[in-house]
């Protein structure tokens, strides 16, 4: 098995707000292997973005890592100094954000912005850095890069801007690229271009990618492994095939079933009723219990442990407990997924 580059263990993050504390991430553990794409899927408020920002230590002021470790090549980033983080950000681990307009400085040419990164981490000289900037823009598929380096962000379209952001993130050949909803603000045809680009870059550079998204279609297209987050917890993790065809958690079933299928005719979508829990008052038991069609008393009372189904596949659900299967067999209820 390939070795893991990043190990996140029991990460918990909370936000202070004026009416109380929001437990945004409540004990998340996962590994990122060399050269793979791991997708973290979840809905808004599931804690997927907070998790990625914790790795970069880019959390807002009112947020705090309550516990847990983020081991990057053996070093715990959760306890690293701000200075150390500055040297890691952009060179070892890079991040791409959702909105390409706000992640670029509107008063600087795109070339200059890339050169800044190169100068800071690589100590490259002027002409050398400029040539490298143009090379990076070429790498991300921007036509006539020598001309584009002199342009300002507002002169570029949304798709072009996101390419520039990716070029900046790649400037120092990072070991990990965290892409937080990189295509959500883009149109489908542009999204297809950007996803294609990220795939190609991974093949060429061998960078590990953490892809944060809410779109299962994007996951199916781009990722090798998936972690499904719900209410600050990873409820299921597995390879894409395990997750799409052998899902074990009812939330994953619900997510898959609520997507319309382009190639099948369905009269009604299977919706998940209700709304996610308010993480200011996180439930004691399984957070999905209140919306789960298979919920049992035990789900409300206690958070389930992870059950492993293969080396790569595990889910936190009481349905995996032998006692639940026995109870279900007795009543003749079905515990299979909807798919």
């Amino acid at each position, binding site marked *: 098995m390939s070795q893991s580059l990043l190990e996140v263990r029991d990460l918990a993050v909370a936000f202070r707000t004026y009416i109380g504390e929001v437990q945004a991430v409540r004990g998340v553990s996962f590994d990122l292997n060399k050269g793979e794409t791991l997708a973290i899927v979840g*809905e*808004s408020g599931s804690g997927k973005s907070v998790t990625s920002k914790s790795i970069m230590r880019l959390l807002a002021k009112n947020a705090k890592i309550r516990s847990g470790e983020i081991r990057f090549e053996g070093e715990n980033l959760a306890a690293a100094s701000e200075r150390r983080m500055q040297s890691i950000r952009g060179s070892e681990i890079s991040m791409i954000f959702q909105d390409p307009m706000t992640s670029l400085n509107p008063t600087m040419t795109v070339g200059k912005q890339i050169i800044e990164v190169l100068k800071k981490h690589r100590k490259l000289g002027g002409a050398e850095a400029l040539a490298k900037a143009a090379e990076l823009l070429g790498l991300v598929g921007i036509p006539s890069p020598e001309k584009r380096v002199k342009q300002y962000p507002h002169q570029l*379209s*949304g*798709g*072009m801007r996101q390419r520039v952001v990716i070029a900046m993130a790649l400037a120092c050949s990072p070991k990990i690229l965290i892409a937080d909803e990189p295509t959500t603000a883009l*149109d*489908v*045809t*542009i*999204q*297809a*271009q950007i*996803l*294609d680009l990220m795939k190609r870059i991974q093949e060429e550079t061998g960078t590990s990618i953490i892809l944060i998204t*809410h*779109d*299962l*279609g*994007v*996951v*199916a*297209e781009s990722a090798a492994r998936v972690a499904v987050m719900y209410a600050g917890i990873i409820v299921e993790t597995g390879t*894409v*095939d395990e997750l*799409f065809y052998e899902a074990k958690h009812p939330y994953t079933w*619900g*997510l*898959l*079933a*609520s*997507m*319309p*299928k*382009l*190639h099948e005719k*369905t009269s*009604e*979508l*299977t*919706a*998940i*009723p209700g*709304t*996610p829990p308010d993480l200011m008052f996180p439930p004691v038991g399984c957070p999905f219990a209140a919306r789960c069609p298979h919920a049992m008393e035990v789900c409300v009372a206690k958070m389930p442990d992870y059950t492993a189904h293969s080396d790569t596949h595990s889910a936190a659900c009481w349905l995996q407990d032998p006692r639940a299967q026995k109870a279900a067999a007795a009543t003749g209820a079905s515990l299979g997924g909807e798919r």
Partner: protein
Amino acid sequence: MAEQGKKKPLVQVEGLKRHFQVGGGKTLKAVDDVSFEIYPGETFGLVGESGCGKSTLGRTLIRLYDATDGKVLFDGEDVHGTKSKTELKALTRRIQMIFQDPYASLNQRMNVEDIIAEGMDAHGLAKNRAERTKRVVELLETVGLNAEHAKRFPHEFSGGQRQRIGIARALAVDPDFIIADEPISALDVSIQAQVVNLLQKLQRERGLTYLFIAHDLSMVKHISDRIGVMYLGGMVELATSDDLFEEPLHPYTQALLTAIPIPDPRLERERKRQLLQGDLPSPIDPPSGCRFRTRCPFATEHCKNKAPEWREVRPNHWVACHLYGSESDRAAMKA
């Protein structure tokens, strides 16, 4: 959909244009010469990328914007014609709108009861306070909420709940036709299905007609009977949803369909996609001739010189592309 040809359309859009004056004496042709019809009881889907004019089109249909040119007939009546206040009010009661942003579409300072009752108040539909409250509770229950929510304020609700409040508000005046302007694009996947199911249920129960505007093709396909595809202010293809997905004719529609990621890894690995090159041109200065030609893999000199006609190339399947144009156009394409 054969009988649709005989049915009288509920909404007829003829050569509709909506232009905006932007700085420097330039004109943004947000909607430029669009014609289509919507039949009673159907869902008409409108798709396109951002800036294609689909939202402007929706807002012009309901007279939030005045038309620059062209006509919108609702049940035979001209929406944009000069009217007395009461005539206009009677007409607009029958057309309602559901908005995209569940946060901006509800007034923060009003409670849910007042929000939902707004249309009832404007049209005097409730005789007294008690009847007003009763109607509001009925509407809340229709959209899956309950009486307990009536006195709460919008900021306490989740996005999906707010969107359902917006639906209840539109239903309060008992409309015939609802324009849903990207009603689910700001919502989470599991919540999107709730809202779409609710819209379909309401359509069955109340015989509503929808114009469903979205950029998410898979959802549009699921909910729509017929679909119109827009690109840079113009409509490029119009067909029943099955025809459009089984046999897209316009190169843009083809590219749009292959661009959607499918939530199925095996299918995803097998399929070949046709990636569109380049970006959307600016609608202020659109390309001459066919607007799509700058990104079209089949574009020729002819596309630059002449804008394609809007033709019904198969029964109920309209397209604006020289590849399916008149014989002379097709000949010019081969040349």
